[in-house]
Protein backbone atom coordinates (compact mmCIF):
# COMPACT_ATOMS: atom_id res chain seq x y z
CA UNK A 1 0.00 0.00 0.00
CA UNK A 2 2.84 2.42 0.76
CA UNK A 3 5.46 3.18 -1.84
CA UNK A 4 9.11 2.29 -0.98
CA UNK A 5 10.19 5.95 -0.73
CA UNK A 6 7.44 6.76 1.78
CA UNK A 7 8.28 3.75 3.89
CA UNK A 8 11.81 5.09 4.19
CA UNK A 9 10.53 8.26 5.91
CA UNK A 10 9.87 8.25 9.70
CA UNK A 11 6.36 6.92 10.37
CA UNK A 12 4.00 9.63 11.59
CA UNK A 13 1.34 7.07 12.42
CA UNK A 14 2.09 3.55 13.55
CA UNK A 15 -0.71 1.17 14.48
CA UNK A 16 0.32 -2.31 15.57
CA UNK A 17 -2.19 -5.14 15.76
CA UNK A 18 -4.94 -2.79 16.86
CA UNK A 19 -8.27 -4.18 17.96
CA UNK A 20 -11.32 -2.14 18.84
CA UNK A 21 -14.42 -3.76 20.22
CA UNK A 22 -17.74 -2.30 21.38
CA UNK A 23 -20.29 -3.85 23.66
CA UNK A 24 -23.95 -3.70 22.79
CA UNK A 25 -25.74 -5.41 25.63
CA UNK A 26 -24.32 -8.91 25.87
CA UNK A 27 -23.02 -8.74 22.30
CA UNK A 28 -19.42 -7.78 21.52
CA UNK A 29 -18.82 -6.05 18.18
CA UNK A 30 -15.31 -6.12 16.75
CA UNK A 31 -14.89 -2.97 14.68
CA UNK A 32 -11.12 -3.21 14.11
CA UNK A 33 -9.61 -6.64 14.10
CA UNK A 34 -5.84 -6.86 14.64
CA UNK A 35 -5.12 -4.06 12.22
CA UNK A 36 -1.63 -2.63 11.57
CA UNK A 37 -0.87 0.53 9.64
CA UNK A 38 2.10 2.79 9.09
CA UNK A 39 1.73 6.28 7.62
CA UNK A 40 4.87 8.17 6.76
CA UNK A 41 5.40 11.79 7.67
CA UNK A 42 4.27 14.07 4.86
CA UNK A 43 1.96 11.49 3.30
CA UNK A 44 -1.63 12.05 2.15
CA UNK A 45 -3.64 8.91 2.73
CA UNK A 46 -7.29 8.10 2.30
CA UNK A 47 -9.35 5.54 4.18
CA UNK A 48 -12.26 4.12 2.22
CA UNK A 49 -14.78 1.46 2.86
CA UNK A 50 -18.49 0.81 3.33
CA UNK A 51 -20.39 2.08 6.35
CA UNK A 52 -19.44 0.15 9.46
CA UNK A 53 -16.10 -0.92 8.00
CA UNK A 54 -14.23 0.80 10.83
CA UNK A 55 -12.63 3.68 8.89
CA UNK A 56 -13.96 6.44 11.18
CA UNK A 57 -13.00 4.41 14.24
CA UNK A 58 -9.51 4.09 12.83
CA UNK A 59 -9.36 7.83 12.20
CA UNK A 60 -10.54 8.53 15.77
CA UNK A 61 -7.75 6.33 17.15
CA UNK A 62 -5.17 8.20 15.09
CA UNK A 63 -6.60 11.54 16.23
CA UNK A 64 -6.55 10.60 19.92
CA UNK A 65 -10.33 10.82 20.21
CA UNK A 66 -10.74 7.16 21.07
CA UNK A 67 -8.69 4.35 22.59
CA UNK A 68 -7.83 0.97 21.15
CA UNK A 69 -9.06 -2.07 23.04
CA UNK A 70 -5.67 -3.68 22.42
CA UNK A 71 -2.60 -3.08 20.30
CA UNK A 72 -0.23 -0.16 19.96
CA UNK A 73 -0.99 3.34 18.69
CA UNK A 74 1.91 5.73 18.13
CA UNK A 75 1.30 9.08 16.49
CA UNK A 76 3.89 11.81 15.99
CA UNK A 77 6.23 9.84 18.20
CA UNK A 78 3.71 9.72 21.08
CA UNK A 79 2.37 6.51 22.57
CA UNK A 80 -1.36 7.22 22.83
CA UNK A 81 -2.24 3.97 24.59
CA UNK A 82 -0.74 5.10 27.89
CA UNK A 83 -2.23 8.62 27.88
CA UNK A 84 -4.84 9.97 30.28
CA UNK A 85 -7.83 11.98 29.05
CA UNK A 86 -5.99 15.21 29.83
CA UNK A 87 -2.85 14.02 28.03
CA UNK A 88 -4.92 13.11 24.98
CA UNK A 89 -6.54 16.57 24.96
CA UNK A 90 -3.08 18.16 25.09
CA UNK A 91 -1.89 15.79 22.35
CA UNK A 92 -4.79 16.77 20.09
CA UNK A 93 -4.21 20.46 20.72
CA UNK A 94 -0.53 20.15 19.79
CA UNK A 95 -0.38 17.61 16.99
CA UNK A 96 -3.78 17.27 15.34
CA UNK A 97 -5.79 19.51 13.03
CA UNK A 98 -9.41 18.43 12.61
CA UNK A 99 -11.69 18.79 9.61
CA UNK A 100 -15.24 17.48 10.11
CA UNK A 101 -17.91 16.61 7.56
CA UNK A 102 -20.32 19.23 9.04
CA UNK A 103 -17.55 21.82 9.49
CA UNK A 104 -18.35 22.11 13.25
CA UNK A 105 -17.77 25.83 13.49
CA UNK A 106 -19.03 27.74 16.55
CA UNK A 107 -22.08 29.60 15.24
CA UNK A 108 -21.65 32.52 17.67
CA UNK A 109 -18.04 33.19 16.71
CA UNK A 110 -16.82 34.96 13.57
CA UNK A 111 -14.66 33.19 11.02
CA UNK A 112 -11.53 34.78 12.52
CA UNK A 113 -12.57 33.83 16.07
CA UNK A 114 -13.29 30.26 14.98
CA UNK A 115 -9.86 29.98 13.44
CA UNK A 116 -8.30 31.51 16.56
CA UNK A 117 -9.89 28.88 18.87
CA UNK A 118 -7.01 26.33 18.90
CA UNK A 119 -4.54 29.14 19.60
CA UNK A 120 -6.32 29.90 22.86
CA UNK A 121 -4.70 26.72 24.15
CA UNK A 122 -1.25 28.20 23.54
CA UNK A 123 0.54 30.97 25.39
CA UNK A 124 0.54 33.28 22.37
CA UNK A 125 -0.47 36.86 23.10
CA UNK A 126 -3.78 38.05 21.66
CA UNK A 127 -2.25 40.14 18.86
CA UNK A 128 -0.13 37.18 17.66
CA UNK A 129 -3.14 34.90 17.78
CA UNK A 130 -5.17 37.29 15.65
CA UNK A 131 -2.31 37.68 13.17
CA UNK A 132 -1.86 33.93 12.80
CA UNK A 133 -5.61 33.36 12.44
CA UNK A 134 -5.73 36.04 9.73
CA UNK A 135 -2.81 34.37 7.94
CA UNK A 136 -4.59 31.01 8.05
CA UNK A 137 -7.71 32.60 6.60
CA UNK A 138 -5.58 34.09 3.83
CA UNK A 139 -4.19 30.63 3.01
CA UNK A 140 -7.75 29.38 2.42
CA UNK A 141 -8.67 32.54 0.51
CA UNK A 142 -11.17 33.93 3.02
CA UNK A 143 -9.34 36.93 4.45
CA UNK A 144 -12.25 39.15 3.36
CA UNK A 145 -14.71 36.99 5.34
CA UNK A 146 -12.90 37.30 8.69
CA UNK A 147 -15.77 39.09 10.43
CA UNK A 148 -18.52 36.92 8.97
CA UNK A 149 -20.40 34.47 11.13
CA UNK A 150 -20.81 30.87 9.88
CA UNK A 151 -24.47 31.52 8.97
CA UNK A 152 -23.26 34.22 6.56
CA UNK A 153 -20.99 31.78 4.68
CA UNK A 154 -21.66 29.07 2.10
CA UNK A 155 -20.95 25.42 2.94
CA UNK A 156 -17.71 25.49 0.97
CA UNK A 157 -16.61 28.67 2.73
CA UNK A 158 -17.45 27.18 6.12
CA UNK A 159 -15.30 24.15 5.34
CA UNK A 160 -12.46 26.44 4.27
CA UNK A 161 -12.73 28.25 7.61
CA UNK A 162 -12.58 24.82 9.27
CA UNK A 163 -9.42 24.04 7.25
CA UNK A 164 -7.90 27.34 8.40
CA UNK A 165 -8.76 26.33 11.98
CA UNK A 166 -7.12 22.92 11.43
CA UNK A 167 -4.02 24.60 10.05
CA UNK A 168 -3.56 27.53 12.42
CA UNK A 169 -1.86 25.60 15.20
CA UNK A 170 0.73 24.19 12.80
CA UNK A 171 -0.23 20.57 13.61
CA UNK A 172 1.74 17.55 12.43
CA UNK A 173 -1.31 15.74 11.10
CA UNK A 174 -4.57 16.87 9.55
CA UNK A 175 -7.38 14.35 10.08
CA UNK A 176 -10.37 14.88 7.84
CA UNK A 177 -13.59 12.93 8.31
CA UNK A 178 -15.61 13.06 5.08
CA UNK A 179 -14.50 16.66 4.45
CA UNK A 180 -16.46 16.89 1.19
CA UNK A 181 -19.48 14.86 2.27
CA UNK A 182 -21.80 17.84 2.60
CA UNK A 183 -20.53 19.82 -0.41
CA UNK A 184 -21.32 20.15 -4.09
CA UNK A 185 -18.70 19.01 -6.58
CA UNK A 186 -17.22 22.44 -7.19
CA UNK A 187 -16.82 23.22 -3.50
CA UNK A 188 -15.56 19.69 -2.87
CA UNK A 189 -12.84 20.16 -5.50
CA UNK A 190 -11.76 23.42 -3.85
CA UNK A 191 -11.50 21.67 -0.49
CA UNK A 192 -9.54 18.77 -1.93
CA UNK A 193 -7.20 21.21 -3.69
CA UNK A 194 -6.66 22.91 -0.34
CA UNK A 195 -5.89 19.62 1.37
CA UNK A 196 -3.35 18.87 -1.35
CA UNK A 197 -1.85 22.29 -0.80
CA UNK A 198 -1.57 21.64 2.95
CA UNK A 199 0.15 18.35 2.17
CA UNK A 200 2.52 19.58 -0.52
CA UNK A 201 3.25 23.19 0.46
CA UNK A 202 2.92 22.96 4.22
CA UNK A 203 4.25 19.38 4.50
CA UNK A 204 1.31 18.25 6.62
CA UNK A 205 0.51 14.58 6.92
CA UNK A 206 -3.14 14.21 5.88
CA UNK A 207 -5.34 11.27 6.80
CA UNK A 208 -8.80 11.46 5.23
CA UNK A 209 -11.87 9.26 5.54
CA UNK A 210 -14.08 9.40 2.45
CA UNK A 211 -16.75 7.57 0.54
CA UNK A 212 -15.96 9.53 -2.59
CA UNK A 213 -13.51 7.87 -5.06
CA UNK A 214 -12.91 11.28 -6.65
CA UNK A 215 -11.79 12.61 -3.26
CA UNK A 216 -9.65 9.53 -2.64
CA UNK A 217 -7.91 10.07 -5.95
CA UNK A 218 -6.25 13.17 -4.49
CA UNK A 219 -4.51 11.00 -1.88
CA UNK A 220 -1.18 9.38 -2.58
CA UNK A 221 -2.25 6.16 -0.86
CA UNK A 222 -5.72 4.75 -0.39
CA UNK A 223 -6.51 2.08 2.20
CA UNK A 224 -9.67 0.04 1.74
CA UNK A 225 -11.28 -1.32 4.85
CA UNK A 226 -13.95 -3.93 5.20
CA UNK A 227 -15.25 -5.42 8.43
CA UNK A 228 -12.40 -3.99 10.47
CA UNK A 229 -9.52 -5.18 8.30
CA UNK A 230 -7.64 -3.92 5.25
CA UNK A 231 -8.63 -5.51 1.99
Amino acid at each position, binding site marked *: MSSPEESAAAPMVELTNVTKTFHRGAETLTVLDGLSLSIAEGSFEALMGPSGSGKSTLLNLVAG*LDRATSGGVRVAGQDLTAMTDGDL*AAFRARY*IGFIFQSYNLMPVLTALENVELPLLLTKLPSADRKRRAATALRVVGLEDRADHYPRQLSGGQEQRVAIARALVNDPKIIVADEPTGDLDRKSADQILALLEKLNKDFKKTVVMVTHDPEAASHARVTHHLNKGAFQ
Partner: protein
Amino acid sequence: MVPVSYSVRNLMVRRTTTAATALGIGLVVFVFASVLMLGAGLQRAMGRSGSADVAIVLRAGSDAESSSGIELPAAGLVTASPEVRVRPDGRSDAVGEVVGVLALDRAGGEGMSNVQVRGVPDDVYRFRPSVHVVAGRAAAPGSDEVVVGAAIRGRFRGVDLGQSFEIKKNRRVRVVGVIEDRGSSFESEVWGDIDTVRAAFGREALVSSVRVGLRSAGQLDAFKRAIETNPQLGLTVKRESVYYEELAQGTTTFLTILGLMIAFFFSAGAMIGAMITMHASVAQRSREIGTLRALGFSRRSILASFLFESVVLSLAGGVVGALASLAMGLVRFNIVNFATWSEVVFTFVPTPSIVVSSLLFAALMGLLGGFFPAVRAARMNVLDALRA
Protein backbone atom coordinates in the same frame (compact mmCIF):
# COMPACT_ATOMS: atom_id res chain seq x y z
CA MET B 1 -9.77 28.67 28.12
CA VAL B 2 -12.91 28.81 26.01
CA PRO B 3 -13.35 32.48 25.02
CA VAL B 4 -15.63 34.63 27.14
CA SER B 5 -17.32 35.90 23.97
CA TYR B 6 -18.46 32.34 23.22
CA SER B 7 -20.37 32.15 26.50
CA VAL B 8 -21.79 35.66 26.38
CA ARG B 9 -22.89 35.47 22.73
CA ASN B 10 -24.58 32.14 23.33
CA LEU B 11 -26.71 33.89 25.94
CA MET B 12 -27.50 36.66 23.47
CA VAL B 13 -28.51 34.16 20.79
CA ARG B 14 -31.11 32.64 23.11
CA ARG B 15 -32.55 36.04 24.03
CA THR B 16 -36.02 35.01 25.17
CA THR B 17 -34.90 32.12 27.35
CA THR B 18 -32.06 34.18 28.75
CA ALA B 19 -34.35 37.11 29.54
CA ALA B 20 -36.98 34.90 31.22
CA THR B 21 -34.40 33.13 33.38
CA ALA B 22 -32.61 36.36 34.26
CA LEU B 23 -35.93 37.95 35.19
CA GLY B 24 -36.68 35.11 37.62
CA ILE B 25 -33.28 35.56 39.23
CA GLY B 26 -33.80 39.33 39.22
CA LEU B 27 -37.01 38.91 41.19
CA VAL B 28 -35.23 36.89 43.86
CA VAL B 29 -32.41 39.41 44.06
CA PHE B 30 -35.01 42.17 44.34
CA VAL B 31 -36.56 40.44 47.37
CA PHE B 32 -33.15 39.69 48.85
CA ALA B 33 -31.87 43.26 48.44
CA SER B 34 -35.14 44.72 49.73
CA VAL B 35 -34.96 42.62 52.88
CA LEU B 36 -31.42 43.78 53.57
CA MET B 37 -32.42 47.39 52.83
CA LEU B 38 -35.33 47.04 55.22
CA GLY B 39 -33.03 45.79 57.98
CA ALA B 40 -30.58 48.59 57.26
CA GLY B 41 -33.42 51.13 57.35
CA LEU B 42 -34.66 49.90 60.71
CA GLN B 43 -31.13 49.82 62.12
CA ARG B 44 -30.57 53.37 60.91
CA ALA B 45 -33.84 54.64 62.32
CA MET B 46 -33.05 53.15 65.69
CA GLY B 47 -29.28 53.53 65.62
CA ARG B 48 -29.41 57.21 64.76
CA SER B 49 -31.41 57.82 67.90
CA GLY B 50 -28.41 56.93 70.06
CA SER B 51 -25.05 58.55 70.78
CA ALA B 52 -21.90 56.84 72.00
CA ASP B 53 -21.19 59.49 74.67
CA VAL B 54 -24.70 59.39 76.09
CA ALA B 55 -25.74 56.85 78.71
CA ILE B 56 -29.35 55.86 79.36
CA VAL B 57 -30.44 54.83 82.83
CA LEU B 58 -33.48 52.56 83.31
CA ARG B 59 -35.08 50.63 86.14
CA ALA B 60 -33.12 47.38 86.55
CA GLY B 61 -34.83 44.62 84.57
CA SER B 62 -36.46 46.99 82.07
CA ASP B 63 -35.61 46.55 78.43
CA ALA B 64 -37.34 49.68 77.19
CA GLU B 65 -38.17 53.14 78.49
CA SER B 66 -41.90 52.51 78.26
CA SER B 67 -41.66 49.76 80.90
CA SER B 68 -39.22 51.59 83.19
CA GLY B 69 -39.81 53.93 86.12
CA ILE B 70 -37.27 55.86 88.19
CA GLU B 71 -38.23 57.87 91.27
CA LEU B 72 -37.28 61.52 91.09
CA PRO B 73 -34.79 61.46 94.02
CA ALA B 74 -32.91 58.59 92.35
CA ALA B 75 -32.94 60.48 89.07
CA GLY B 76 -31.40 63.46 90.90
CA LEU B 77 -28.60 61.26 92.25
CA VAL B 78 -27.90 59.93 88.77
CA THR B 79 -27.54 63.36 87.19
CA ALA B 80 -25.24 64.48 90.00
CA SER B 81 -22.65 61.77 89.24
CA PRO B 82 -19.13 63.11 88.58
CA GLU B 83 -18.93 61.34 85.15
CA VAL B 84 -21.79 63.51 83.84
CA ARG B 85 -20.92 66.51 81.69
CA VAL B 86 -21.66 69.93 83.16
CA ARG B 87 -23.10 72.69 80.99
CA PRO B 88 -21.70 76.23 81.06
CA ASP B 89 -24.67 77.27 83.26
CA GLY B 90 -23.51 74.78 85.91
CA ARG B 91 -26.35 72.29 85.41
CA SER B 92 -25.76 68.62 84.57
CA ASP B 93 -26.09 67.77 80.86
CA ALA B 94 -28.94 65.31 81.41
CA VAL B 95 -32.65 64.82 80.74
CA GLY B 96 -35.23 62.79 82.62
CA GLU B 97 -38.16 61.85 80.39
CA VAL B 98 -41.49 60.12 80.74
CA VAL B 99 -42.39 57.69 77.95
CA GLY B 100 -45.80 56.17 77.29
CA VAL B 101 -47.53 54.40 74.46
CA LEU B 102 -50.78 55.76 73.06
CA ALA B 103 -53.19 53.96 70.72
CA LEU B 104 -54.35 56.32 67.98
CA ASP B 105 -56.71 55.98 65.04
CA ARG B 106 -54.92 55.82 61.73
CA ALA B 107 -55.78 58.57 59.30
CA GLY B 108 -58.27 57.27 56.72
CA GLY B 109 -59.91 54.89 59.21
CA GLU B 110 -57.53 51.92 58.82
CA GLY B 111 -57.75 50.83 62.44
CA MET B 112 -55.46 51.82 65.29
CA SER B 113 -51.78 51.68 66.06
CA ASN B 114 -49.51 52.53 68.93
CA VAL B 115 -47.47 55.72 69.02
CA GLN B 116 -44.73 56.44 71.53
CA VAL B 117 -45.32 59.65 73.51
CA ARG B 118 -42.34 61.30 75.17
CA GLY B 119 -42.68 63.84 77.98
CA VAL B 120 -39.63 66.07 77.66
CA PRO B 121 -38.19 68.87 79.81
CA ASP B 122 -37.87 72.32 78.30
CA ASP B 123 -34.13 71.95 77.63
CA VAL B 124 -34.53 68.80 75.51
CA TYR B 125 -33.39 70.50 72.27
CA ARG B 126 -30.21 71.53 74.01
CA PHE B 127 -29.59 67.92 75.00
CA ARG B 128 -30.43 66.65 71.50
CA PRO B 129 -29.11 69.29 69.11
CA SER B 130 -29.74 67.08 66.07
CA VAL B 131 -33.51 67.36 66.59
CA HIS B 132 -34.99 70.34 64.75
CA VAL B 133 -38.44 71.85 64.53
CA VAL B 134 -39.07 71.92 60.77
CA ALA B 135 -42.62 73.23 60.79
CA GLY B 136 -44.54 75.28 63.33
CA ARG B 137 -42.78 75.83 66.65
CA ALA B 138 -41.68 74.02 69.79
CA ALA B 139 -44.34 73.22 72.40
CA ALA B 140 -44.59 75.80 75.19
CA PRO B 141 -43.43 74.44 78.58
CA GLY B 142 -46.24 73.50 80.96
CA SER B 143 -48.86 73.61 78.20
CA ASP B 144 -51.09 71.10 76.42
CA GLU B 145 -49.08 71.55 73.27
CA VAL B 146 -47.07 68.82 71.52
CA VAL B 147 -44.76 68.45 68.57
CA VAL B 148 -44.89 65.35 66.34
CA GLY B 149 -42.21 63.50 64.38
CA ALA B 150 -42.18 64.10 60.64
CA ALA B 151 -42.55 60.35 59.95
CA ILE B 152 -45.93 60.08 61.68
CA ARG B 153 -47.26 63.51 60.74
CA GLY B 154 -50.64 63.06 59.11
CA ARG B 155 -50.59 59.28 59.51
CA PHE B 156 -52.92 59.35 62.53
CA ARG B 157 -56.14 61.24 63.11
CA GLY B 158 -55.38 64.61 64.68
CA VAL B 159 -51.61 64.19 64.40
CA ASP B 160 -50.80 67.08 62.09
CA LEU B 161 -49.93 70.70 62.43
CA GLY B 162 -52.85 72.69 63.90
CA GLN B 163 -54.83 69.55 64.77
CA SER B 164 -55.44 67.99 68.17
CA PHE B 165 -55.96 64.53 69.64
CA GLU B 166 -56.74 62.99 73.03
CA ILE B 167 -53.68 62.03 75.04
CA LYS B 168 -56.06 60.81 77.74
CA LYS B 169 -59.82 60.64 77.90
CA ASN B 170 -61.15 64.21 77.77
CA ARG B 171 -57.63 65.64 77.66
CA ARG B 172 -56.70 66.95 74.25
CA VAL B 173 -53.31 68.14 73.16
CA ARG B 174 -52.70 70.43 70.19
CA VAL B 175 -50.00 69.85 67.59
CA VAL B 176 -47.95 73.05 67.21
CA GLY B 177 -44.80 71.76 65.53
CA VAL B 178 -43.11 69.00 63.52
CA ILE B 179 -39.64 67.67 64.35
CA GLU B 180 -37.01 65.88 62.30
CA ASP B 181 -33.86 64.01 63.35
CA ARG B 182 -31.99 62.45 60.36
CA GLY B 183 -34.57 59.69 60.02
CA SER B 184 -34.16 58.46 63.62
CA SER B 185 -36.96 56.87 65.63
CA PHE B 186 -37.66 60.24 67.32
CA GLU B 187 -39.39 61.11 64.05
CA SER B 188 -41.98 58.45 64.94
CA GLU B 189 -42.77 59.98 68.36
CA VAL B 190 -44.99 62.65 69.91
CA TRP B 191 -43.17 65.02 72.24
CA GLY B 192 -45.05 66.96 74.90
CA ASP B 193 -44.36 68.74 78.16
CA ILE B 194 -43.07 66.30 80.80
CA ASP B 195 -45.73 67.18 83.38
CA THR B 196 -48.55 66.90 80.85
CA VAL B 197 -47.37 63.45 79.72
CA ARG B 198 -46.68 62.37 83.32
CA ALA B 199 -50.20 63.27 84.31
CA ALA B 200 -51.69 61.62 81.21
CA PHE B 201 -49.91 58.33 81.87
CA GLY B 202 -50.17 58.37 85.68
CA ARG B 203 -46.42 58.53 86.25
CA GLU B 204 -46.44 61.04 89.12
CA ALA B 205 -43.05 61.47 90.83
CA LEU B 206 -41.41 59.25 88.23
CA VAL B 207 -39.41 59.49 85.06
CA SER B 208 -39.12 56.58 82.64
CA SER B 209 -35.48 57.15 81.92
CA VAL B 210 -32.58 59.45 82.57
CA ARG B 211 -30.11 60.24 79.82
CA VAL B 212 -26.80 61.76 80.73
CA GLY B 213 -24.10 63.23 78.56
CA LEU B 214 -20.78 61.69 79.68
CA ARG B 215 -17.61 63.74 79.96
CA SER B 216 -16.27 61.30 77.36
CA ALA B 217 -17.44 58.04 75.78
CA GLY B 218 -14.79 56.22 77.87
CA GLN B 219 -16.48 57.31 81.12
CA LEU B 220 -19.32 54.84 80.63
CA ASP B 221 -17.73 51.99 82.61
CA ALA B 222 -17.05 54.17 85.65
CA PHE B 223 -20.57 55.66 85.51
CA LYS B 224 -22.16 52.24 85.03
CA ARG B 225 -20.21 50.83 87.97
CA ALA B 226 -21.15 53.72 90.21
CA ILE B 227 -24.88 53.49 89.43
CA GLU B 228 -25.38 49.74 89.15
CA THR B 229 -23.45 48.87 92.31
CA ASN B 230 -25.60 51.19 94.41
CA PRO B 231 -28.23 48.78 95.81
CA GLN B 232 -30.55 51.61 96.87
CA LEU B 233 -31.01 52.78 93.29
CA GLY B 234 -31.86 49.49 91.54
CA LEU B 235 -30.97 50.94 88.16
CA THR B 236 -29.23 49.73 85.03
CA VAL B 237 -27.01 51.73 82.66
CA LYS B 238 -26.48 51.28 78.94
CA ARG B 239 -24.72 53.23 76.27
CA GLU B 240 -27.54 54.97 74.36
CA SER B 241 -26.39 53.66 70.96
CA VAL B 242 -26.32 50.10 72.35
CA TYR B 243 -29.76 50.56 73.89
CA TYR B 244 -31.26 51.46 70.51
CA GLU B 245 -29.41 48.68 68.73
CA GLU B 246 -30.86 46.21 71.24
CA LEU B 247 -34.33 47.70 70.80
CA ALA B 248 -34.09 47.22 67.05
CA GLN B 249 -32.45 43.81 67.26
CA GLY B 250 -35.53 41.67 67.76
CA THR B 251 -37.55 43.33 65.04
CA THR B 252 -34.62 43.47 62.63
CA THR B 253 -33.76 39.82 63.22
CA PHE B 254 -37.39 38.78 62.75
CA LEU B 255 -37.77 40.75 59.53
CA THR B 256 -34.43 39.66 58.16
CA ILE B 257 -35.01 35.97 58.89
CA LEU B 258 -38.52 36.12 57.44
CA GLY B 259 -37.32 37.96 54.36
CA LEU B 260 -34.30 35.76 53.82
CA MET B 261 -36.45 32.65 54.15
CA ILE B 262 -38.74 34.00 51.45
CA ALA B 263 -35.69 34.84 49.33
CA PHE B 264 -34.27 31.37 49.99
CA PHE B 265 -37.40 29.58 48.76
CA PHE B 266 -37.64 31.90 45.77
CA SER B 267 -33.98 31.28 45.02
CA ALA B 268 -34.58 27.53 44.87
CA GLY B 269 -37.09 28.19 42.09
CA ALA B 270 -34.75 30.58 40.30
CA MET B 271 -31.87 28.11 40.52
CA ILE B 272 -34.03 25.36 39.05
CA GLY B 273 -34.90 27.83 36.26
CA ALA B 274 -31.22 28.52 35.62
CA MET B 275 -30.50 24.79 35.74
CA ILE B 276 -33.20 23.99 33.16
CA THR B 277 -31.94 26.78 30.90
CA MET B 278 -28.36 25.61 31.13
CA HIS B 279 -29.30 21.94 30.67
CA ALA B 280 -31.16 22.87 27.48
CA SER B 281 -28.17 24.87 26.38
CA VAL B 282 -25.81 21.95 26.95
CA ALA B 283 -28.12 19.60 25.05
CA GLN B 284 -28.39 22.01 22.10
CA ARG B 285 -24.65 22.52 21.94
CA SER B 286 -23.43 18.93 22.33
CA ARG B 287 -21.66 18.98 18.99
CA GLU B 288 -19.97 22.29 19.83
CA ILE B 289 -18.81 20.79 23.12
CA GLY B 290 -17.49 17.75 21.26
CA THR B 291 -15.67 20.00 18.79
CA LEU B 292 -14.07 22.05 21.56
CA ARG B 293 -12.94 18.86 23.27
CA ALA B 294 -11.59 17.50 19.98
CA LEU B 295 -9.62 20.71 19.45
CA GLY B 296 -7.93 20.07 22.78
CA PHE B 297 -9.98 22.03 25.33
CA SER B 298 -9.93 20.18 28.63
CA ARG B 299 -12.96 19.03 30.61
CA ARG B 300 -12.09 21.73 33.13
CA SER B 301 -12.26 24.42 30.41
CA ILE B 302 -15.71 23.23 29.37
CA LEU B 303 -16.86 23.16 33.00
CA ALA B 304 -15.55 26.68 33.58
CA SER B 305 -17.11 27.95 30.36
CA PHE B 306 -20.62 26.75 31.23
CA LEU B 307 -20.31 27.84 34.85
CA PHE B 308 -19.22 31.26 33.64
CA GLU B 309 -22.19 31.42 31.28
CA SER B 310 -24.55 30.54 34.11
CA VAL B 311 -22.99 33.16 36.39
CA VAL B 312 -23.22 35.84 33.67
CA LEU B 313 -26.88 34.92 33.17
CA SER B 314 -27.54 35.22 36.89
CA LEU B 315 -25.56 38.43 37.25
CA ALA B 316 -27.60 39.99 34.45
CA GLY B 317 -30.71 39.17 36.47
CA GLY B 318 -28.95 40.31 39.64
CA VAL B 319 -28.20 43.73 38.20
CA VAL B 320 -31.85 44.15 37.16
CA GLY B 321 -33.07 43.03 40.60
CA ALA B 322 -30.60 45.23 42.48
CA LEU B 323 -31.49 48.28 40.36
CA ALA B 324 -35.19 47.67 40.87
CA SER B 325 -34.65 47.35 44.61
CA LEU B 326 -33.04 50.80 44.70
CA ALA B 327 -36.49 52.19 43.88
CA MET B 328 -37.63 50.82 47.24
CA GLY B 329 -35.58 53.63 48.79
CA LEU B 330 -38.52 55.88 47.94
CA VAL B 331 -40.95 53.78 49.95
CA ARG B 332 -41.70 54.58 53.60
CA PHE B 333 -42.45 51.62 55.75
CA ASN B 334 -44.04 51.42 59.17
CA ILE B 335 -43.68 48.58 61.60
CA VAL B 336 -44.42 47.90 65.24
CA ASN B 337 -41.20 47.59 67.21
CA PHE B 338 -41.49 44.43 69.30
CA ALA B 339 -39.57 46.01 72.19
CA THR B 340 -41.68 49.15 72.58
CA TRP B 341 -44.91 47.97 70.86
CA SER B 342 -45.09 51.33 69.15
CA GLU B 343 -44.89 52.13 65.49
CA VAL B 344 -41.60 53.09 63.89
CA VAL B 345 -41.56 54.60 60.42
CA PHE B 346 -38.48 54.15 58.30
CA THR B 347 -37.30 53.88 54.71
CA PHE B 348 -35.48 51.11 52.85
CA VAL B 349 -31.83 52.08 52.94
CA PRO B 350 -29.64 50.97 50.02
CA THR B 351 -25.96 50.66 50.84
CA PRO B 352 -22.99 49.66 48.66
CA SER B 353 -22.53 46.50 50.72
CA ILE B 354 -26.16 45.49 50.08
CA VAL B 355 -25.68 45.95 46.33
CA VAL B 356 -22.47 43.87 46.45
CA SER B 357 -24.16 41.18 48.60
CA SER B 358 -27.09 41.03 46.18
CA LEU B 359 -24.81 40.55 43.19
CA LEU B 360 -22.82 37.90 45.06
CA PHE B 361 -26.11 36.19 45.89
CA ALA B 362 -27.02 36.25 42.19
CA ALA B 363 -23.61 34.86 41.25
CA LEU B 364 -24.02 32.10 43.83
CA MET B 365 -27.40 31.16 42.37
CA GLY B 366 -25.74 31.02 38.95
CA LEU B 367 -22.93 28.83 40.24
CA LEU B 368 -25.26 26.40 42.00
CA GLY B 369 -27.86 26.36 39.21
CA GLY B 370 -25.22 25.95 36.52
CA PHE B 371 -23.14 23.37 38.32
CA PHE B 372 -24.86 20.16 37.24
CA PRO B 373 -25.36 21.22 33.59
CA ALA B 374 -21.69 22.30 33.47
CA VAL B 375 -20.56 18.99 34.95
CA ARG B 376 -22.72 17.19 32.40
CA ALA B 377 -21.09 19.18 29.59
CA ALA B 378 -17.60 18.51 30.93
CA ARG B 379 -18.21 14.78 31.33
CA MET B 380 -19.55 14.25 27.82
CA ASN B 381 -17.79 11.61 25.80
CA VAL B 382 -16.10 13.43 22.90
CA LEU B 383 -17.28 11.06 20.20
CA ASP B 384 -20.85 10.90 21.52
CA ALA B 385 -20.91 14.70 21.64
CA LEU B 386 -19.57 14.99 18.08
CA ARG B 387 -22.23 12.58 16.81
CA ALA B 388 -25.10 14.48 18.52
